[in-house]
């Protein structure tokens, strides 16, 4: 029987328990980012809106089961249709802005880095945690609806038959979801690290996103060149990179459920991959250069 004093000692006891490994500290930051994001009701609304293209596709696939020849012909290119839904990038962009614009900017505004970086957390842990929180939400926004629609189609057409014709989609889905998630997360942490106001980060990134799309289209129209080069130039924007690399991965062009809204020329993969990789590196490097606990004044 253990020795116990007649009156229990209820005074403060210092923590002398185990401490988690340093390598897990980034996960604490990522998990907190996810918790903060999923507490926002607007995120759930945006997630629902981002799934709409896939829900429409699912609806048409379902209707196609009872539809005539014309409908089944329209739904024949499942990969193209999936890519069409995947290329609808507006709502995922809004999701990225909602979860990413304030990720570091809010900490800058609150001077929270002073406290965060006084804990046994390295700059790398902090950056990885913040990056991962954005990445996981955007990844989920792409991956889940894709997975549901693809699974439905696989069961509807028969697993074996589907795997023969479109089985690559199952393997490609994580990569497809990772491309926009990586691009958005890397660029947003880069811009967010340099700001103290989340809405300004949102405006800058949205501006960059849409301006790059307009610029790429003008560039492609202005230069008289081959169809492939023109298609490549047209994809030299954040939105275009996501769609273009998606085409390369699924080896098809996006198709729409609306007749006539199809693109037939695929862009070259290499320039798009190089530009995407450069943007990712620049975004992360810029964030890493800026993240510090104190404001250093240069006199």
């Amino acid at each position: 029987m253990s020795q116990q004093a007649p009156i229990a000692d209820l005074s403060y006891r210092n923590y002398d328990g185990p401490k988690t490994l340093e390598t897990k500290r980034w996960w604490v930051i990522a998990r907190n980012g996810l918790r903060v994001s999923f507490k926002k009701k607007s995120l759930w609304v945006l997630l629902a809106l981002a799934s709409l293209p896939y829900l429409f596709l699912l609806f048409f696939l379902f209707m196609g089961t009872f539809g005539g020849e014309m409908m089944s012909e329209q739904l024949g290119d499942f990969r193209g249709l999936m890519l069409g839904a995947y290329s609808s990038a507006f709502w995922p962009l809004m999701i990225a802005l909602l979860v990413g614009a304030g990720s570091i900017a809010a900490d800058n505004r609150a001077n929270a880095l002073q406290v965060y970086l006084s804990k046994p957390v390295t700059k790398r842990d902090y950056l990885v945690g913040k990056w991962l929180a954005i990445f996981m939400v955007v990844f989920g926004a792409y991956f889940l609806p894709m997975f549901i629609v693809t699974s439905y189609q696989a069961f509807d057409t028969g697993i074996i038959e589907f795997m023969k014709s479109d089985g690559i989609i199952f393997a490609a889905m994580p990569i497809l979801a990772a491309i926009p998630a990586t691009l958005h997360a890397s660029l947003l942490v880069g811009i967010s690290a340099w700001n103290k106001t989340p809405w300004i980060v949102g405006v800058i990134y949205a501006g960059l996103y849409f301006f790059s799309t307009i610029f790429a289209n003008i560039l492609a129209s202005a230069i008289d060149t081959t169809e492939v080069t023109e298609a490549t130039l047209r994809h030299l924007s954040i939105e275009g990179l996501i769609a273009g690399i998606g085409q390369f991965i699924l080896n098809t062009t996006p198709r729409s459920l609306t007749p006539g809204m199809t693109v037939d020329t695929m862009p070259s993969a290499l320039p798009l991959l190089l530009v995407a990789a450069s943007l990712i590196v620049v975004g992360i490097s810029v964030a890493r250069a800026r993240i510090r606990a104190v404001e250093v004044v240069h006199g």
Partner: protein
Amino acid sequence: MITIQRASRWYGQVIGLNDVTCDFNPGITALLGQNGAGKSTMLKLITGQLRPTTGDLTVFGERPFSNPKVYERIGYCPETDSFYEDMTGRQFVTLMARMAGVASRNVDSIVANTLEKVGMADRCDKKIAGYSKGMRQRIKLAQALTHNPEVLILDEPLNGLDPVGRRELQEMLKGLAAEGKTIVISSHILHEVEQMTRHIVLLHKGRLLALGDVGEIRGLIDKHPHRVHVEMAGAREFARKLMVMPSVLSVAFDRQNPDHVEIETAAPDDFYSEVADMVLTENIEFSAFTSPDNNLESVFRYLVSK
């Protein structure tokens, strides 16, 4: 614990800390100085948020800059309110505890315990946005304490606390110091600091001005002789006896209060010893016997204005 060797920190062409050498050991040390004296710079150097431009600074024998091993053993309470406003106090302290490495299975009880200790147990589930300055101070303290650090760095921890809160914090810090923790407190509230410690590090315009026990430092300030204020019946008779003492420099009377006398001495230890002998042999009774400038406030004023 903390060793600073000729450390300087420049911000571009502005110097924040200039060639400072000192040590911080277990117990409470007050880091004092006017605005811009370099207190916050020194704290940021100790907590590894800045690197000295020249010189060296070690905590537990290691350089703290970008060194998480050192941060595990440090608790830092910054001057600014560094929070997510839409988090509750409990959520914030829990996050900080997890970042400090407190194991998941222990974190809830440890956080509850710490919040209880800083007097926030009943208000910790409200959003920080609605907290008063005092409540924010308590939450900042809680996040610095959760992982049981060996070194506590507190930047203006008394700001915004009510008198009861200050007293509670003082008692808590004294308790932690008695456990062997090294506590560095930067503060402007000198009389409150004085109730916690007599050991000071005084900075002025980025330079180290004084270091050590307040009493010892006071004794070394020759320019301002030590003043002793006495109230008693027969003050003039007592003053006459004092005049023969070699330690006494001057005696002054108050025209309004004939029972009051103020003595200036250059050797306070000798003076107190001689007066004690006189009190015992001649059975003298005092109504009051105080030293108005033997406190931190005076030491600070004398050193900074010299």
